[in-house]
C-alpha cells in the first residue's frame, strides 16, 4: 500500500522534534524510536520514513533496527500492550494458565490485538522479576504472582477507563 503525502506530513513535525532532541546522532536511533513509538505503541511506515529523513540515514537502516528489537512493533498494537513472560521460571510457576486466562478474557490469541485496539497480547523476554513469577508487563507496569483469578482483577482495572 503506497504511503500518502498526508500521512507523511501528519507525523513530520513530531518526528523532527524528537530527532532534534538527540541532535540526529546516529547512536541515538534506539532512543529516538522508543520516543516515536511512545504515542501509540507502534511505528508506522510514515514515521519510519520521517525518522530516516530527519536523521539523513537510509530507511533500510531504520527499518532494520525497528524490526530487530522486540520492543518495537511495525504492526499496529493496542493502547495497552500486555507482554507475558513465558521464560522457564515463569513457565514452571504457571505462565501457561495465565496466558490462557488472558486469551479467553480478551477473546484473542497471543500476538493479536482486540478489535477495539485496546489490548495486544505478546510474549516478552524475561522481565527480571522472577521472584514474583509468573509475571506480565502492561505498558510500563509490571504484575507478578499471577493466577487466572488475578488476571481478571488486573484486566478489570484497565476496563474501567
Amino acid at each position, binding site marked *: 500500500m503506497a504511503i500518502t503525502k498526508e500521512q507523511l506530513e501528519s507525523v513530520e513535525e513530531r518526528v523532527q522534534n524528537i530527532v532534534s532532541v538527540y541532535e540526529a*546522532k*546516529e*547512536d*541515538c*536511533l*534506539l*532512543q529516538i*524510536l*522508543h520516543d516515536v513509538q511512545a504515542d501509540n505503541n507502534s511505528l508506522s511506515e510514515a514515521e519510519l520514513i520521517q525518522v530516516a529523513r530527519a536523521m539523513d540515514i537510509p530507511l533500510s*537502516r531504520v527499518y*532494520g*533496527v525497528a524490526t*530487530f*528489537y*522486540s*520492543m*518495537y512493533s511495525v504492526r499496529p498494537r493496542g493502547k495497552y500492550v500486555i507482554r507475558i513472560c*513465558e*521464560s*522457564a*521460571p515463569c*513457565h*514452571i*510457576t504457571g505462565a*501457561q494458565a495465565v496466558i490462557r486466562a488472558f486469551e479467553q478474557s480478551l477473546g484473542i490469541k497471543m500476538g493479536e490485538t482486540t478489535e477495539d485496539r485496546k489490548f495486544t497480547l505478546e*510474549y*516478552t*523476554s*524475561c*522481565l*527480571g*522479576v*522472577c*521472584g*514474583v*513469577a509468573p*509475571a506480565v*508487563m502492561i505498558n*510500563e507496569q*509490571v*504484575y*507478578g*504472582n499471577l493466577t487466572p483469578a488475578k488476571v481478571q482483577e488486573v484486566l478489570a482495572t484497565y476496563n474501567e477507563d
Partner: protein
Amino acid sequence: MEFFRSHVLVCSGVNCSFKGSRSVRNALVEEIEKQGLGQEIKVVETGCFGLCEEGPVIVVYPEAVHYCRVSPGDVGEIVEEHLRKGRIVNRLLYRGEAFPKAVQTWEQIDFYSRQKRVVLRNCGLIDPDNIDEYIARDGYEALGRVLRHLEPGEVIGLIKESGLRGRGGAGFPAGLKWDFTASAPGDQKYLICNADEGEPGTFKDRLILEGDPHSVIEGMTIAAYAIGASKGYIYFRGEYNLSIDRLTQALKQAREYGLLGENIFGTGFGFDIEIKVGAGAYVCGEETALINSIEGKRGEPRYKPPYPASAGLWGKPTCVNNVETLANVPPIILNGAEWFRSIGTEKCPGTKVFTLTGNITNAGLIEVPMGITLREVIYDIGGGIPNGRKFKMAQTGGTSGGCLPGALLDVPMDIDSLAAAGSALGSGALMIMDDSHCIIDVVKCFLQFFRHESCGQCTPCREGTWRLYELVDKISRLEATMEDVELLRRLSRTMEDASLCALGQTAPFPVLTTMRFFPEEYEAHIKKGVCPAGICSAVSQTA
C-alpha cells in the same frame, strides 16, 4: 544533622514493589505523622533485602526486627505497638519451616545468616537515592584512594592479584581484561558496564543497581582510571525502567558532588557516564552485540578477533564489565586483594550473587561465598522445596546453563567446579524444579526462548535453534524415535562448534545436560510413549 530514635526501612526492590511496598511506605509515613512521631522516626526506602518471596519486607532499626508480607492494613498496629510501645508484632515475623518459632531480627533468619554480603553490602541498609548514605558507608573512599595514591598500573595489579573474575557468565579474569584495554594503543578508550541482564531467571544486576547504584558508578570510575577511559556507558535493558530512573538520579548526584565529570578529587582525571537503553534483544548481552547496539545499530555480534579490548566501540579500545564485577571493585580496593582471596575458593575468590527462582520456598536474591554447595543454597538458604514436593532438577546459569540432578547436589557453586560437573555458573541464575514437572517440557520451553532470541546472523544458530525445538517438540508429542535423539545430539555438537557467539554455542547446553543426567525421561517419552510427569501428550500444548 537530624537524629531519629528509629528507622523503618521499607524494601523498594522491584519484587516488593509489585507486592505493594510503596503503599506500605505511604501508609507508614502517614500513620507516623498522624501519631505525632514524625520527629522521632524516619521511614527510608531501601534496596532489595533478597527475601522476595516474603515481601513486602520492612526492617525496624535499631532492633533490626524483620517483618514479612506487610500490607498497609498492618501499618497501624506496627506504629502503635512496635514504634510507640516497643512491643514486637509477632504475627508479622518470619517463620521458617525449620523454625516454627518466629524469628525476630534479620540476622537470625537462616536465609540471611548463611550469606556473605560484599556486593550487596548496602542493599537493604541505605537509601539508594541518597548519595550521603552511600558515602557514610565508606562510599567513594576507594575512588579517592585510587586517584590520589595509585598509578593505573597499580590498580590493575591489585585487581589481578585479587583474582576477581567476570560475574556476567564467562568468568574471564577482570584484571587481565583491564590490562588488555590499558595496553592497547589509542588515545580514546571506553568503559562499558553491561547491565543488559537478559538471561531468564536472572535479576541480580537490576537489584544491585536499584539497591546500591553508587557502588557501580564508583567501580566504573576506578576501572576507567585503570584503563585510561574518559567516557563510560551503562547499557540497560529497555524493560528495566526502575533501574534506569535510579541510576539517572545517582549519576546526577555524583556529578553534583564532583565525583564524576572533570577533575575528579582535584586530580585532573575526568570521566563521565552516559546511559544507553536497549529495546528487547537477549543477544545484546554479548559484548560485541551490545557495542553495536550502543552505536545505534542492530544488535548483531561481531566476529572476534578483533576483541573489544583492541577495537570495540567505534573501533576504539573498549572494556566491557558486568554490573556485579564492577560492584566488587571498591571493596577490593579498600580491603585488599588478600582479604578478597580469603573469601570463596582458590581459583574463584570472592562471593557470588545468585537469584533463586522456580519451585523454592525463599525465591529471591542471595550472596554467598564461591564454592558453597548447591544443597546448602537450596535447603539451608532457600528453605527447600515448597508444597511437600521433591527436588527434581536445578538449572544453574540461566536458560543457557546446565540442568543438574539430585545426585549432584553437593557440587560446589563456583565457575570451575560447575563446569567440571557438566554445568555452568553463568550469570548466577538458579532455577529449581520439583517433581511435578517434566524435563522434556521444560527443555522445550528453553528452546522456544532460543529460537525466538537467535539474531539470525549465523546459520548454525538461526536454523539450529528451530530444528532443536522441533525435535524436542516431537519428543513431547510422544512421536520421536531414538534416531531423533541421535540427531539432536549431533545438531547440538554442530551448534556448539560452529555458532558465531555464545547464544548459539550454549543453546544446546540444556539439551545435552538433560540427555546426560535424565536419560530415563527421554526414554520414557520415546520408548514407552509416556510422560512420567503427565504433562506432555500427543496433542501439542504450544503451537
